[in-house]
């Protein structure tokens, strides 16, 4: 007998759960359906990717990953003081869907896009290599995302909107802005390093605030936005700055 495809299970479960959580439907079916969603679905696709031959092991890892994600998102919101059940649900649903999404295609498209965006087309103007305007976009975009997140936090926007954006920003952007300065050749490594560095920066900022007795989530986000903005400014300056071609006439970038 064929097992139901994990993609189908995850997509159907996510759609059903969305139909219950987002419009705040209260029905007796909500408890069992959302219980199954919360403790099994976000990790199902990721466990399935491991291609374990044993169903029990696959189920265990799906539950383990889901429960751990539930804990991380729950405690993250409580520590950052951005509690929102809808925001948390959106994060979990996104992770669930990403688990069964064809990531290799995304990675390929992202790689191509990033190559275009980051390197851009270069042309030689005498001995000086200049970039096309396309290469301006990523740092500018990252800066504006920071401004947007900071505005949402300061203006206390609805937590359903604020929570996923703040969590996503803290997990990715400050590190990405810094890592881009190094210009790693491997885009996947760049993304992985971006997440790690973002977490590290968040920890350093939090620790600094604790030591200085100035604990404030808004201040923390502001610090991260400043760090990211400084990095993007640095990238803009280095990109825009005319670069001499090497003596052998090779291109930089």
């Amino acid at each position, binding site marked *: 007998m064929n097992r139901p495809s994990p993609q189908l299970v995850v997509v159907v479960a996510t759609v059903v759960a969305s139909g219950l*959580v987002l419009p705040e439907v*209260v029905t007796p079916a*909500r*408890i069992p359906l*959302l*219980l199954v*969603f*919360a*403790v099994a679905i976000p990790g199902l696709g*990721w466990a399935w*990717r*491991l291609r*374990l*031959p*044993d169903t*029990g*092991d696959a*189920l*265990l*890892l799906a*539950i*383990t*990953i889901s*429960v*751990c*994600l*539930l*804990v*991380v*998102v*729950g*405690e*993250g*919101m*409580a*520590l950052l*003081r951005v*509690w929102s*059940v809808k925001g*948390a*649900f959106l994060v979990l649903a996104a992770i669930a869907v990403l688990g069964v999404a064809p990531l290799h295609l995304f990675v390929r498209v992202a790689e191509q896009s990033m190559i275009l965006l980051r390197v851009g087309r270069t042309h030689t103007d005498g001995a000086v290599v200049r970039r096309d305007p396309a290469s301006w976009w990523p740092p500018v975009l990252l800066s504006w995302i920071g401004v947007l997140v900071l505005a949402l936090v300061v203006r206390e926007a609805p*937590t359903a909107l604020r929570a996923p954006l703040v969590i996503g920003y803290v997990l990715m952007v400050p590190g990405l802005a810094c890592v881009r300065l190094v210009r790693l050749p491997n885009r996947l490594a760049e993304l992985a390093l971006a997440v790690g560095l973002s977490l590290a920066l968040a*920890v350093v900022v*939090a*620790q600094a605030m*604790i030591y200085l007795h100035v*604990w404030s989530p808004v201040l923390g986000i502001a610090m991260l936005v400043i760090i990211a903005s400084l990095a993007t400014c640095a990238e803009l300056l280095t990109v825009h700055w005319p670069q001499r071609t090497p003596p052998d006439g090779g291109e930089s970038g």
Partner: protein
Amino acid sequence: LDGRASHGAVGVRPSAAVSTERHDNIALEGASVQLPLRRSAVGSNHDRPPSVQPRWDNLQSLAIVLFAALMWIIGFWGADPRDMTDIGLLTLFTLPVIAALAVLTGSFFIALRRRAPEWVLAMHVVVFIGLIHGTPPALFHTLRYGWAWKHVGIVEYILRTGMVDTTISSRPIYHSWPGFFGGSALLTELLGRSTLLSLAVWTPVAFNLFNLLAARFLLRTLTDDRRVVWLALWLFFVTSWLGLDYYSPQGLAFPLYMVLMGLVLRAHRRPRDFSHNVDRPVTKVMSARAVLPIMVLVMTVIASSHQITPLMMVLGLTTMFILRQARGWHVPVLAVVLTVGWALVVARGYTLDHLNGLTIGQPVQNSVDTFEKSADVRGGQVLVSFGGRLNTAVALSAALVGVYKAWRRRRLDHGALLLLLSPMLLLAVTEYGGEVLFRVVLFASPFTAYFAALAIYCDGAEGARTRLAVTGAVLTAILLPTFLLGYYGKDAQNYFTPAEVKAASWLYENAQPNAVIVEGSRNYPQRFRNYEKLNLLSIANEPKDSRDRVLADPAGRLSNWIAAGPSHKPGYVLITRSQKVANDLIGPMPVGSLERIEQALRASPRFRVALNTGDAVVFTLAENRNQA
């Protein structure tokens, strides 16, 4: 791939098996490694693959298990938890209940003997979990064990405020390691806030099912033989008497610890271990790269949810890697960084304030502290305490026999032995509020069960399998009563009636912030609502001199305590049924002390009854002291 599993057991050389060797390609950390695999190839009837077993046997097992469950339900039908005496839920055991356990045990070992398919063995263990751990919630209808109520209080705080506060003065430890509570709050809010208590009530069942999957995952890294795995799982559940499966961070962190160790054993064992142990299940080897994100996630949750499990994680992993049972230095380093990082960043305030609580280098004293906790028990609780200890002693003895047998046969898994012994390092670090010995037993328990299973495991001819079934059943007959004593024996004090919950709920709703609330003891549904606003004083937890003064003049002393509180906020005294039961069974005051205090307050003109729910009485001062 599982169908290719060897029928030879790890740790036991098949006696009558003719072994053949073949080579399989396995992916180990991205490299293709050729390792020998040994399969027992006995052509006799009893070695048929499980899938071709007659279906009738399996249906028979299913019917027997359902019959056992039915007997259990009939046995408890109409039981009243108020009738429990000093040996807890065991008081309510009837002949059908005992018969149900005997039938279930017998059926499990018969299934094991005839090499039943895995689902049949799993069905026995799942039903065992359902019956043992589902009975208290089904019978009590309220959350069992006082500490579980306190944990509900933290989740209620997060749901009410949307945050944790690491600088809070009341129970900062939970705010500093908020993983379990944050996850519980999010789950509760997803399902609907009214589900918090019902979720908490059924947690032991959920955690034990999680334990079953996690322990199976872990044990399958140690042996390829399904019968050893399920025998070990059975022994694991009949030796898990500690009751640390309640609504708590420990309950979540323990299965995660088992998953982590399983991942490490699957992805980071050195190749030489595989070649030494020819029965190793190579199909279960996982890529270290693929497993790393999951390990980091699990480590993060362990490090942010509990205090002693991260310590155990660091000790276990460091020992494994230092003693070269696994490779990949980054794994223990990650564990140390996450554990220490969390303790010094998020939980910095609590950590620095309590560093002197570590009792490093005092293993004997730390062990003695655990024994001292049960030194004052009375009546049936002495038997309960003895039952738990005997269970652990028998299980450890069997495990030592298993270690010896494996060593004699040159099949000793050093990694498993190390993970059995490494929890003892905890004794050298902390006394953990007098509970460290319990945690040592807990973290060693999957490996204790594994080696105990090896001790009674026999492979080969039908006679040997019959010996295995009989020995297993006899060992269960010794372990099960002691398990039941340990696990159910404290239920007289762990059970709270709805009337007690109602009284505590009323008090927490109506008491003004920081008003003094005097409680007979802490054994009642405590602090589950508005917990940070309460100023609680427990008579049982006062120093002995202070307790004696209260017992000498209850109305006078307690009115003074309340009068010392804020003048404009009326104080209360709460005496409940479960407080009296707990004090009479485990102290510290003489038997009947809380009953005498209640009678004295009822008779005193200084107090009046503010609420009486039958099982709980709330007193307040007859007049406001300013008016007086």
